[in-house]
Structures are given as C-alpha cells and as structure tokens.
C-alpha cells in the first residue's frame, strides 16, 4: 500500500525524498489514530470504572461526555509546566521524551491486517517490540532522578525494578509463542494460527497467555501493579513533579503502551486479525464480509476492557508481593511451560505443532 | 482533733468546726449558696443538705458542727434527693434569662443547676416578678433573679458596716432592697457583686460588655492606695473589661474596695493621650516617639547645664521601676530636685532627714492591736481595706480612738473620739495626760486615749492624710512621737498612695536638692512630671500650675491629655497605665508586689520604664541597657537605700507653737479623686456625687497679730 505511494512519488521527485515523505505519511497514519485511541481510552476508563461503581462517569462535556478527552487535552496544554528549581533541567525535560518515543516507535512492526498492512514488516518483529518497549523504563528512571524528589525517586526505583522483573516472564512467554509459530515475524505468527478459534495459540499456551497479560499489566504500571504511582503511598511516583503537557506526555506513553500490549496479546495469542468463526460452516460465511482489521480492533478492545476491569476490581499489590509474584510464580511457570511446549512440539501435539 | 467520715473517707477536724468547712478542706464538694467563709452562717438556702448517720432528716452542712465519729454522706440517695428538691424550689421562681444575664457563665446557681437541676420544670404557674431597684451607679439589680441567700445583707451588716440592703416580707413576698429609695454607697459595696451567687447584683459599668468566657485573666496590683490589693484584670482582647479581687488573705482577703474595683474605667477614658506631642511656637504637633524623645533629650541636656533649676516631680502612683529610672536619669543629669510628696505642705524636717511612710504592722496584726489612735485620718476613705481590718479589731473588743478635724462617718464605733480644729492642741493634751495621769485639768477623753495606749499590750498610732497635709505636720509628728515614746505605742505615718514606700525606697527624695514646695516657689526653668496632674494631685494646685507656666520647659509623661496640661507643658509623652505595664508596687507594710502587663498600651503609648530606658540612652547616661523590667527591679533591690539617715525625732528639737492657726476650709481629696485614673472613672464619679463630701482641713497658717 505504502510501496505504491512511494513508487508513485518517486516518479516525480528524488527517491530519498519519496522515501522520506512515505515514511512521514506512514508515521502519521499510525500515530494520529493511536493518539485518538489513547484519548478515548482515558474516557473509556473513566466510564467503565464509573459504571462498575454504579456511577455514570463523565457526562457533562458533549453528548455522553464524548468531548471530555478534548477538554482534558486543552486543559493540560494550557497548564503551566513547572520546572522544579532543584531539578536537573536537561534530564527533567528529556525524561518524558524518552518515555513516549519507544511507546510510539514499537508500533512500526505491528500488523493491522493481512496483506502486509504494517509500517515495516521485518523478520525480527517480536524482538524489536521487546527491545524498544524496554527502553521506556529509562524515561521513568530519568524522570525520578531528575525531579530531585524523594517520592519521584522512590517511584522510579520501584518502576525500574518491576519492569526488569516482569520483562523476563514476558520474554519467556513469547519464547513459547516463537517455538510454536517458528517465526519472529508478527505477520507470520498470525498466519500460523489460521484455522479457527481453537487453532489460536491461547489454547495450547493458556498459562502463557495469562502470564503474558499479567506481565503486560505490570509492564505498563497498571492496577493492580501500579506501585510505581501508588498515590496513597508515594503521591504519584515518578511523575509527581510533572505538570501540564510534560505530565500529559507520560500519560500518553502509559496508555499507548497499554494499547500496544493489547495488540501484542491479540496478535500472539488470539489470532490477530483472523476471524473467530473460521472453519465454522455457517458463521464463517455470515461474517465473511467483516474486515480482519475490525476483528483485531474488537479483540484489542476486549483486552483493554480487561485492563480497566482489573483496575476497578483489584486492590493494589504491596511492593514485595509484586516482586514475589514476578520472580517466584510467573518466571517458574513460564520455564516449566517452555519444557511442556518442547515436549508437545516433539510429539507434534494437536493442530498447533505441525 | 477528732475524726469524722465523709463519703467513707476519714477526715480530721477540730471539734466545733462546721461540716462544710471540713468537707471543703478535704476537697469534697457540697453545693451551697448562702454560705460564705467570710460571712456569718445563715443556713437559709438549704442547698448544702447532707445525710448524717443517726439524724432523721438531712442536715445543712454549713450549720452542723462536727462531732467525733460522725458519719456523713454527701452523695447518698437521701442527700441528693434533698439537694435536688431544694434546687427545684430555687428554680421555681428563677427566671430563664441566663442568655442575657451578665452572670451567665460564672453563675453559682447555673453551675449547681447543671448537677442538681431537672431538665424540665414541674412548675407551670406564673413566676414571681420583683421590681428592680436603682441602688446607684455601681451595682445593677435584677431582683427577679434573687434566690434570697442574704449574702449581700450579711455583707452589709458584717463587713461593710452599713446595712444598706435588707430583706422585707416573708416567703413568696420576701424582697431584698433598700426599703427606702437610696444608693448603696459604702466604699466596699462592690463586693456584693462577687458575693451574689446569681445575677441579681451585677456590675453596672461592666453590664452587657462581655461574657465571662471571653475574658482573659491577668494578675495585677491595684495602684489606687497603699494596700496593694491583689486584683485580677479581666480583659477582652485588648480592652480591660473589669477588675475583680484576687484571693490574698494577708492583704485584701477576698475583698476589694470600690475604688480599686471600678477605677479601671479611667484606663479606657477618651482622655487618654495616645501619641507623643510637642509644642512648637505655641502650637501642638503630633510626632513619632523618635522625634519626641530626641526633642526632649536635647532640651533636657540644655537645661541640665543648670541642674539646680530643673525640677523632677512624680506621682507616687508610679511603679517602683519608673520611679527608680526617673531618679536615675535625674541624678545622672546632676538634678537633685526630686519629689513625690505632692500632698505634703510642711517640709521643715527635710534638713534632718525624711520621714519613712510605713505601716509597721502586718494587716493581720492590725486586727490584733489592743489600742489604736488615728490622728487626722479619714481611714475609711483613705485606705478602705486597712479600715476594714481595724473595724474587725474594734468589733472584737479592741479600742480605737481618733483625733480628727471633723466628725467622719466611720462604720464602727470609735471608742474615744476627739473632734477639734486644732490637732496640735488635742495631741498636746494627750501628751499631758500621759505625762501627768493624775492631773485633774485634763478632760476624761484624753486620759482614756492615753491610758488605752499605755496599758494595752500592743498599741499603735496612725497618722493619716489629714495630718500629712497639715501645715503643722512636723509638729504633729513630734507630738505623736512623744505620745508613742511615753505610751510604748508604735508610730505609723501611713503611706496613702500606692508607691509612697517605693518612692522612699528608690530615694526619689530631694536629698541635697529642693523639695516640691521650694521647687514651686522658686523660679525653676524646667520641670519633668511623671503621671502627674499638677492642678489636682498637688495640694496647692494653683501655685503648681503657676510655677509650671513660668517654667521654660515642661516635659510631661502622662496617661491623659488635658487642656490645662497643654497650656503649660511643652512635651507630652503618653505612657501606659497599671494594666498596660509591668512593674512593682511596695505597699504600706513594705511588701513588694510585682505584676505583669495585662493588655497592650493604648494607642501609641508606651510603658514608662521603656521610655526612660531609651531616654537614658539618648542622654548618654550609663547603665540604661535593660531588656526586661525585672532587671530594673533587681537593680533596685541591689542598691537598696534603706540605710539612708533615718529620722530620729527624739533628737530633733521642735518647738511647739502654742499659737492657734487660722482655719481655712479646703476640700480634702475625695475618695474617688485620688489619682488621674480614678478621676476619670465615670461610674465612680457618679457614685462620689452620692458620697458628696467636703471635709475641712487646716489650710496654710497665717499668723495672727
């Protein structure tokens, strides 16, 4: 799709300029809807949590509160960015940048549909996502350090320790996926799950699906693992000194990461853009007209709803419990399951290992 | 010593003590209204009913003497039932106007009703209403509130000495009142306000001006007489709202004279001087302290070049610290013309030494004096609390004699009373009676006085203000000292003002200098006056004003602004009153009583000791680096000048002029016009009109023939 654009452009201008313009268009096409999604995810979050508390959630700005995110954005943009006098100014400003950049960059390899609707269909896609999203922790550490505040520093320490811990479990979970799919290319991983709901990887890798999603919660610092923010303990954690747009950037990064994790889960374990009715005689035909992209969005929406549901349901973990869960439960489970998958692979078990 | 049991607690007591006293000592609370430790027992309120084992009915604790082995229950069912019933009866006719009652919040009835009263009254009939009485400017009455405890009646009979209030009628129709319309004017009547357990008698000047819980209490010493009554200054915010007595058994017991109680109004007078002022080219200008003090210091330095031409006068109502610092400044400038004896007219003893004003007995001892001779003294108005002690003594059978220029209304019987225009002649007769007791020429009364003094175990002669102001003071002193020597009595020259003794202590005296009379009669170039109103505080006010007018420079440290002051003074510096400064008063017995600041000085006025400290520094004098009034007091104690040449009258040859002096009628200072503050207390002013007195003293001598 974008190749065509590039080919058409290079007929008129320099090649490198054509490539550049194409890249820019690609970035805009991905980032703009992403930001919009983030905005409305915040509204959805408030609505969902409100509903679970028998409230209505925001309903004043626009019909059903639909303009609320825009009002919030305008408010945040108008607010003063306070630069603490004792902070390290350079790092203080660098930190939000470091937080949001990876959260956006990772989207480069996410396929949205069959037929290569992806910015860059590289072979080591999974590795890329893992690598890039890990960089996000620097933004948090640096913000905690640069703020020169005890709360922010404590938050940053907690966040970094937590991210490192859960990345291991996450990595192992992905290893099992790679073992089944025999590829690190995300499109190919989806294609490997073809053939109906039961062919998706969540079935043989159910524990890994759970572990991955839980690790995803922890990676994004979401409830019940939001000890890095822990407003009741350390005020707001690493971003306590940030205000206005600087704070908003952290906010965007967090929600972008949430959506990313949801996409990754959908792609890895829930068949990506594949229809759930594949192989079911009547339903398959009935829903044949539905685009793969819609299926993907529905799956992602469900996962995001889970994020919110968890937040409304579970109380925050104590910090030592977070570490215990990561190191003593999730990592052993994933290691065991790597061996289980190995055995299943050897015996060509079910429809998945062939 | 016997032992009794109250509520199961063993208590030691003296045989014959009243049960309520024993319980009070053991801190066992028994409610009461009519009982008061300083008054006789009436046992008419019945609130103190307690159960005594063996007695068929509950007994009043205030009128039940203790006996050995007595068992008392104050909280038993029977006792409480009795107390509650009494309370219910008392509340039948008591109006429910606590919210507008000045007593509300400090009311004994209210407090006891909280414990023993019922929520709802069973009495549905109409309540009794009693018309209020107008009993003068000091006490406001709401007689409907009266519960007939008769404390006020007993106070009048037993303490005041004048039965001003009484009870008429019986039961439902009993009323407390004056019977005929008249004002309550005794000099201690204000104590009825404290005594009244309800809001029937309340202070008129204080009426509707504050509620008790808003008031902050500050300990103070009353500056209006040399008793040094301990007072509690009640202030709301920065306003002195009232003055009540503090318990001080050795000085004022629980009482307070009306002068001390109501004079606080003067502090809040509109006359208060609130900013420093200087006169330039005949025009007054308000200036800041810096300017005023610099101006004064320059002038003082200028006139200090001729120190003998500068006079320093101070009111003896100033504090010890103020007097000390002022004399330190004056002596530092080389000025020796210092005086506080504003009322005195006869200074012929000054060359020999100074009379130390002093009461040589403690107040408790006064009550035990077997014989007392008052010479030229309206003690009841001069020192009401001392008079009260003397009254106690007289009522206990001791002998009180007096030699006065006029027959004064005294609230007890004077055993031997002599009224004559010429004090000298009368005193001479007493001397004669002592020297020749067998002589027949001498009237019986003088013999009685003489014998009472000489035969008594402890006897005392007290010289009051009339003697002190007499132009023949020296001769009176000589004759009384003769009487004292011959009879073995103690001679007291009573200090009248709050700090007469203090002024003597800090040597605020014209040692090597001119006394007040010389200052006023010789042409002085400059005067420094401390809280002094020359026209009223000095006996010969006209002469004083004339002298001040003639002086080139007059610096007044003053509480108040007045026309006459503006006429003669050149600088007016506002200073703080007794409630607004820290300081010390030395009372008649020599007790030094310090007090702290109760409220901030009004307007821009400042505590005088602080002003003197700054002025001392501006004049480049040594040793004015005080940071606290305590340091000044400590310095006074260190440099105690008690050892100055004591006057020994026996060694001085004083001729007693047998010639009679011509009498002029000069009004004696009224009880409520003793100092600038009392003169401005409006309620007292109104009250003093009722007292209305013109007392005659001998005026300057004019030799005849």
């Amino acid at each position: 799709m974008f190749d065509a654009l590039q080919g058409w452009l290079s007929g008129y201008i320099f090649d490198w300029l054509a490539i550049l313009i194409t890249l820019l268009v690609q970035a805009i096409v991905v980032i703009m809807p992403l930001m919009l999604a983030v905005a409305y995810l915040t509204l959805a979050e408030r609505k969902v949590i409100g509903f679970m508390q028998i409230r209505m959630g925001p309903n004043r700005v626009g019909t059903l509160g639909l303009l609320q995110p825009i009002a919030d954005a305008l408010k945040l943009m108008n607010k003063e960015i306070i630069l603490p006098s004792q902070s390290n100014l350079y790092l203080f400003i660098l930190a939000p940048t470091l937080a949001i950049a990876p959260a956006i960059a990772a989207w480069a390899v996410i396929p949205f549909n069959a037929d290569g609707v992806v910015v860059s269909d590289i072979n080591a896609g999974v590795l890329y996502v893992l690598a890039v999203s890990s960089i996000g922790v620097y933004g948090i550490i640096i913000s905690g350090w640069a703020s020169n505040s005890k709360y922010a520093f404590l938050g940053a320490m907690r966040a970094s320790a937590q991210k490192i811990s859960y990345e291991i479990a996450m990595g192992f979970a992905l290893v099992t996926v790679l073992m089944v799919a025999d590829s690190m290319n995300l499109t190919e991983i989806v294609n490997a799950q073809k053939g109906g709901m039961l062919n998706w990887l969540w079935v043989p890798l159910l524990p890994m699906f759970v572990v991955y999603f839980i690790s995803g919660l922890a990676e994004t610092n979401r409830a019940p693992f939001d000890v890095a923010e822990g407003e009741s303990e350390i005020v707001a954690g690493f971003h306590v000194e940030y205000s206005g747009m600087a704070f908003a950037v952290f906010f965007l990064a967090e929600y972008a990461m949430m959506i990313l994790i949801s996409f990754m889960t959908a792609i890895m374990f829930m068949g990506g853009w594949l229809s759930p009715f594949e192989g079911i005689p009547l339903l398959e035909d009935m829903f044949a007209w539905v685009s793969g992209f819609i299926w993907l969005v529905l799956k992602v929406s469900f996962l995001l709803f889970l994020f919110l549901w968890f937040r409304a349901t579970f109380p925050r973990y104590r910090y030592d419990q977070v570490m215990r869960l990561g190191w003593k439960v999730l990592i052993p489970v994933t290691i065991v399951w790597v061996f289980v998958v190995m055995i299943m692979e050897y015996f060509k078990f079910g429809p998945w290992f062939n | 010593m016997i032992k009794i049991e109250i509520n199961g607690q063993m208590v030691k007591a003296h045989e014959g003590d009243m049960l309520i006293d024993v319980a009070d000592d053991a801190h066992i609370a028994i409610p009461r209204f009519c009982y008061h430790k300083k008054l006789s027992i009436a046992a008419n309120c019945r609130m103190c009913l307690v159960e005594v084992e063996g007695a068929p009915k509950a007994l009043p604790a205030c009128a039940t003497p203790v006996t050995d082995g007595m068992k008392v229950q104050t909280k038993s069912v029977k006792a409480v039932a009795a107390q509650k019933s009494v309370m219910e009866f008392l509340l039948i006719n008591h109006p429910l106007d606590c919210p507008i009652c000045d007593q509300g919040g400090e009311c004994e009835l209210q407090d006891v009703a909280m414990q023993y009263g019922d929520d709802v009254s069973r009495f549905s009939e109409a309540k009794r209403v009693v018309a209020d009485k107008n009993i003068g400017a000091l006490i406001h009455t709401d007689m409907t509130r009266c519960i007939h405890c008769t404390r006020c009646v007993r106070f009048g009979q037993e303490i005041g000495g004048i039965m001003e209030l009484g009870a008429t009628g019986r039961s439902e129709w009993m009323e407390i009142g004056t019977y005929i319309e008249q004002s309550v004017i005794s000099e201690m009547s204000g104590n009825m306000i404290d005594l009244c357990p309800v809001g029937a008698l309340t202070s008129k000047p204080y009426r509707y001006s504050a509620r008790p819980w808003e008031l902050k209490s500050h300990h103070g010493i009353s500056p209006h007489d040399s008793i040094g009554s301990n007072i509690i200054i009640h202030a709301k915010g920065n306003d002195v709202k009232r003055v009540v007595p503090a318990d001080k058994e050795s000085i004022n017991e629980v009482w307070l004279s009306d002068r001390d109680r109501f004079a606080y109004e003067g502090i809040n007078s509109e006359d208060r001087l609130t900013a420093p002022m200087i006169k330039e080219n005949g025009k007054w200008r308000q200036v800041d302290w810096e300017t005023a003090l610099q101006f004064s210091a320059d002038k003082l330095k200028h006139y200090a070049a001729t120190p003998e031409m500068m006079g320093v006068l101070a009111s003896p109502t100033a504090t010890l610290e103020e007097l000390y610092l002022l004399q330190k400044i004056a002596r530092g400038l080389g000025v020796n013309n210092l005086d506080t004896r504003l009322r005195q007219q006869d200074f012929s003893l000054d060359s020999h030494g100074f009379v130390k004003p002093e009461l040589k007995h403690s107040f408790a001892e006064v009550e035990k004096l077997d014989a007392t001779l008052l010479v030229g003294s309206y003690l009841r108005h001069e020192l009401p609390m001392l008079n009260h002690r003397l009254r106690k003594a007289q009522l206990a059978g001791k002998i009180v004699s007096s030699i006065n220029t006029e027959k004064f209304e005294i609230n007890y019987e004077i055993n031997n009373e002599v009224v004559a225009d010429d004090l000298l002649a009368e005193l001479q007769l007493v001397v004669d009676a002592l020297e020749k007791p067998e002589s027949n020429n001498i009237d019986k009364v003088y013999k009685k006085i003489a014998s009472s003094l000489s035969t008594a175990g402890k006897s005392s002669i007290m010289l009051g203000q009339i003697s002190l102001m007499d132009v023949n003071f020296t001769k009176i002193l000589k004759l009384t000292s003769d009487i004292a020597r011959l009879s073995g009595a103690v001679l007291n020259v009573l200090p009248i003002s709050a700090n007469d003794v203090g002024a003597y202590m800090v040597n605020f005296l014209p040692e090597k200098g001119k006394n007040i009379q010389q200052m006023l009669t010789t042409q002085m170039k400059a005067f420094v006056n401390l809280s002094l109103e020359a026209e009223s505080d000095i006996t010969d006010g006209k002469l004083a004003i004339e002298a001040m007018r003639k002086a080139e420079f007059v610096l007044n440290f003053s509480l108040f602004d007045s026309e006459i002051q503006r006429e003669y003074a050149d600088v007016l510096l506002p200073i703080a009153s007794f409630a607004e400064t820290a300081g010390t008063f030395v009372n008649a017995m020599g007790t030094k009583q310090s007090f702290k600041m109760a409220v901030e000085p009004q307007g821009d006025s400042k505590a005088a000791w602080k002003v003197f400290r700054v002025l001392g520094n501006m004049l480049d004098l040594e040793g004015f680096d005080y940071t606290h009034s305590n340091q000044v007091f400590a310095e006074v104690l260190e440099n105690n000048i008690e050892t100055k040449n004591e006057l020994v009258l026996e060694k001085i040859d004083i001729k007693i002029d047998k010639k009679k002096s011509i009498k002029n009628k000069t009004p004696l200072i009224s009880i409520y016009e003793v100092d600038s503050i009392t003169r401005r207390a409006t309620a007292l002013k109104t009250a003093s009109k009722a007292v209305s007195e013109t007392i005659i003293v001998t005026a300057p001598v004019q030799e005849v023939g």
Partner: protein
Amino acid sequence: MLAFLKHQFKTFTLLELLKGMVITGKYFLKKKITVRYPEEKTPISPRFRGHHALRRYEGGEERCIACKLCEAVCPANAITIEFEQRDDGSRRTTQYDIDMFKCIYCGFCEESCPTDAIVETRVFEYEFHERGPSIMTKDKLLDFGDKHESQIAEDRAVDAKYR
C-alpha cells in the same frame, strides 16, 4: 494433602480473582444511582444545614439577644459578635458576622441558640469568589431570614417534636 491441592487449584485457576471480577461485572450492568445535580435534586431534610439566617419575631423584633452562646460553641470561630445595651435597655448585637469561609456547617450555633434566632436554612446554592462578601453581616443575615421566613418556620414546625 487434599487441602493443599485445593489451595493450589484455587491459586492457579485464579478462581478468587474471577469471583471478584464477576462482582464488578455485575455492577457494570446495574442501574446507575448518579443524580444529575442541576437538573435533578435529592430531597432535602427539614434539618438541612445550609446558609445561615437570623430570624425575627412576628412583630418584627429581632430574636437575637447577644447571649454569645453560638460564638462560644462555634468550633471554627466563624462567628463574631459585638453587643451593647440598646436604648430601651434590652441586650442586642451591634455586630453579628459569620465568616462563611470558616464555617463548617456543623449546626451547633442553631442548636445552642436559646431564641431560635440563628438558624441554618435549606439554601445551599450560593458561592463567594473573594473574601469580603464571604462575611455575612447582621443586616445580610436578617434580610436572608426575612426572605426565607416561611420555609424556615415550616421546617422548625416539622422538627419541633424532636427537639
């Protein structure tokens, strides 16, 4: 052993977590209890403690007798009263200020008032934007009382038997 297995089963099937999610899930679908305030209003009790008012007797005489009990009882020191003897000898306030910023609407003033002079009304829809107007003076409070007297009297009447 059985207990151990049961425990492990519970742990690894995340049963308890799912139970919790079922509960929140149920609430998600329930009818919402939110009151859309300016359009909808909750019922107000006659004892509601809103804006203060000073009342008068029917004859027009102000009820307040300056007993200062409300000032004394006020836990926030919001009330300031100055008083003096009026010309007819009665005790009246010259100043009765309530600082609405300090007030915590505890209702003690109303409870302590012996003449039902100071009351808290149902009115709660008012706001202040700066310090001066937040102090309700005697005149303002009396006017407010006059304006709402019928409602105030009705509320007191309803509540009278419980006082």
